[in-house]
């Protein structure tokens, strides 16, 4: 079965692009940040430099790793779900569930291994660049040499492989079940576990000193875990959102909107996999950007750092947080692209039933709009939960003094990316003649 896995990877590399890309990018992020641990442990690094590096690695590297874990896992889940027909075919050809599991999990392992291996060299350069930024801002002594060692290497491979293999295992178990009628008790369990862990992580913020260096870590972890919990629960939330939005969606998108509402009701479980990166992006962007803003203001107000230095520090921190937010955004695009490309056959069937390409696009557009509203709402909720916890400990206020500008920007980007990627991909897929589109997977 492992041989079959290898063959299927070699024969159809295109199917694995999304998975390969996400494990590559995930490993790159983890290795880049965690190489700061290795660098800090190097010989002749002064205490202050070592501290800056360790804090960056454990705070941003820490929640970054958790984020990568869920991002890679969600891409993998989407990818395995798309192969249910192939899995069905294998089963009818006499493959046992264990063999199918070995094949899918084996594939995920190989692809993630490849992705992580490809990320090693870029991560060395990435780490060097990150160190340069720290050195330019004067946070780290110029004499410190970048080192890419065991910690970067081990965390990069471990987390990427664990996320890929774990997600493939869970997804194939679901896909392999003869008729997955039992709406996952496991899903509910994971959702509750993520929400509880998130709430605990948020409460941990209150146990810290208001000027602890790692203050940003617990609320960021909390926001990520709450986002994951919400994404898993979205199978329950979506029907509610749909019943509210059914009227406007059908009114605005006509027959396309009619299809949207019916589709989304039936496909709530699949859609929650697409919602995961959207909620993560919104939640992470809101949480990290606002927290950084609050932190910057607090540093400025304390007067401990000179104005010029405060400015550099601000830029540095935004740059670091920006990497994480950009990563979330790319993962969102990646997932949406993979999920929409897969629907070429469904689009073909709709066109054969008499839908014009415009109606199919209207359907996809309406669907993205509902997803965006749900995802941005839940993401903002989880993001602001983190921000409020952080702000109330770091300052003596509850609300951050940053205004709504950041949130509006984040929501705007989330909307543009979701609607743009889905409709752009659908538009390209619609160029395949309907008859061929239907034949693809038949």
């Amino acid at each position, binding site marked *: 079965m492992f041989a079959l896995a290898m063959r299927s990877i070699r024969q159809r590399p295109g199917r694995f692009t999304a998975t390969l890309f996400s494990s590559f990018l995930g490993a790159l992020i983890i290795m880049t940040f965690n190489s700061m641990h290795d660098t800090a442990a190097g010989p002749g690094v002064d205490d202050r430099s070592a501290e800056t590096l360790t804090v960056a690695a454990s705070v941003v590297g820490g929640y970054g790793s958790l984020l990568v874990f869920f991002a890679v896992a969600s891409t993998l889940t989407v990818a395995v779900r798309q192969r249910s027909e192939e899995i069905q075919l294998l089963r009818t050809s006499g493959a046992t569930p264990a063999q199918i599991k070995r094949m899918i999990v084996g594939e995920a392992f190989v692809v993630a291994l490849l992705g992580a291996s490809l990320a090693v060299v870029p991560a060395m350069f990435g780490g060097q660049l990150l160190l340069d930024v720290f050195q330019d801002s004067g946070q780290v002594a110029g004499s410190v040499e970048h080192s890419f060692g065991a910690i970067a290497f081990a965390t990069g491979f471990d987390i990427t492989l664990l996320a890929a293999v774990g997600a493939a295992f869970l997804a194939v178990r679901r896909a392999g079940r003869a008729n997955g009628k039992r709406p996952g008790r496991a899903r509910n369990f994971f959702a509750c576990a993520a929400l509880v862990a998130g709430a605990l992580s948020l409460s941990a913020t209150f146990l810290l000193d208001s000027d602890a260096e790692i203050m940003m870590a617990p609320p960021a972890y909390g926001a990520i875990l709450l986002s994951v919990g919400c994404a898993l629960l979205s199978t329950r939330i979506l029907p509610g959102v749909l019943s509210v939005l059914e009227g406007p969606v059908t009114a605005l998108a006509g027959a396309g909107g*009619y299809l949207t509402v019916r*589709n989304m*009701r039936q*496909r709530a479980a699949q859609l929650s996999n697409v919602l995961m990166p959207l909620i993560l992006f919104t939640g992470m962007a809101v949480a990290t950007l606002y927290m950084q803003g609050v932190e910057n203001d607090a540093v400025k107000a304390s007067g401990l750092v000179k104005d010029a230095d405060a400015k550099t520090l601000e830029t540095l921190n935004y740059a670091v947080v920006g990497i994480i937010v950009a990563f979330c955004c790319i993962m969102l695009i990646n997932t949406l692209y993979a999920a929409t490309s897969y629907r070429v056959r469904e689009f073909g069937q*709709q*066109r054969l039933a*008499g839908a*014009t*390409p415009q109606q199919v696009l209207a359907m996809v557009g309406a669907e993205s709009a509902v997803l965006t509203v749900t995802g941005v709402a839940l993401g903002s909720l989880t993001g602001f939960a983190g921000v409020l916890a952080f702000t109330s400990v770091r300052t003596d206020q509850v609300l951050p003094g940053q205004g709504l500008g950041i949130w509006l920007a984040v929501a705007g980007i989330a909307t543009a990316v979701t609607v743009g990627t889905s409709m752009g991909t659908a538009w390209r897929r619609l160029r395949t003649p309907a008859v061929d589109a239907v034949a693809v997977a038949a």
Partner: protein
Amino acid sequence: MLGNKRDRAGVSGRQTDEALRLVKVSKSYGEGESAVRALDGVSLSLARGTFTAVMGPSGSGKTTLLQCAAGLERPDSGIVMVAGEEMSQGSEAQLTKFRRRRIGFVFQQYNLLPTLTVAQNTILPLKLAGRRIDKAKARAVLEQVGLGGRLRHRPDELSGGQRQRVAIARALVTEPTVVFADEPTGALDIRSARDVLRLLQEAVRVHGRTVVMVTHDPVAASYADSVVFLADGRIAGHMERPTVDAVAERLAHLGDELNGSDHASPLGV
């Protein structure tokens, strides 16, 4: 029979007795030396209210013929007319709108939308066309195909034969001039296949539709009023009131002729 004024204005060709006409339709795939001529100047005229089977060996161009006639493929040259109106060569949206009022489809793989119920699948073409939805009529069509008790089921809860009957109901609900069926019984057992073929017959005899069915099965073809044989992208003969044996024999003969002209590639049925 027609729902509103827009309908009547849109289908002025309804007066003609000709449901489908193909004039010198040609279609090639690929380019240069490797180009394959799937259809080679096929002309054909089918009257309203007829049931025609299109038969031929694999690779004879029968599916291409159906797809060109149904506006799913654009022919390289030639004219396709449905109900007296020439099929537009415009955008896909224009072609889709042309098809909505005149053409219904039944495919071997059913092509029902898995997220919609039986009833929703059936009325989908009306929804998409923005036409008034007569629920009673939709139910009547579904009862006619024997699925009146399964309106709320989804396609994956139905057998192959039941799914194909939903597909037939969906094809008939728009009251099209021509219904194209591509191997409609190809994936069905004998009993379900017979039900499906009887429904197609009924659509012609009782409701006055015109049915064009591509098949390789002489038994399926024997339900039709006439058979058109294709070989090498050209029309190779007609047969009225076909019987299973006569069709099978003619098909075997077609193969002989081809073998005689081209020893390099013997073609089976």
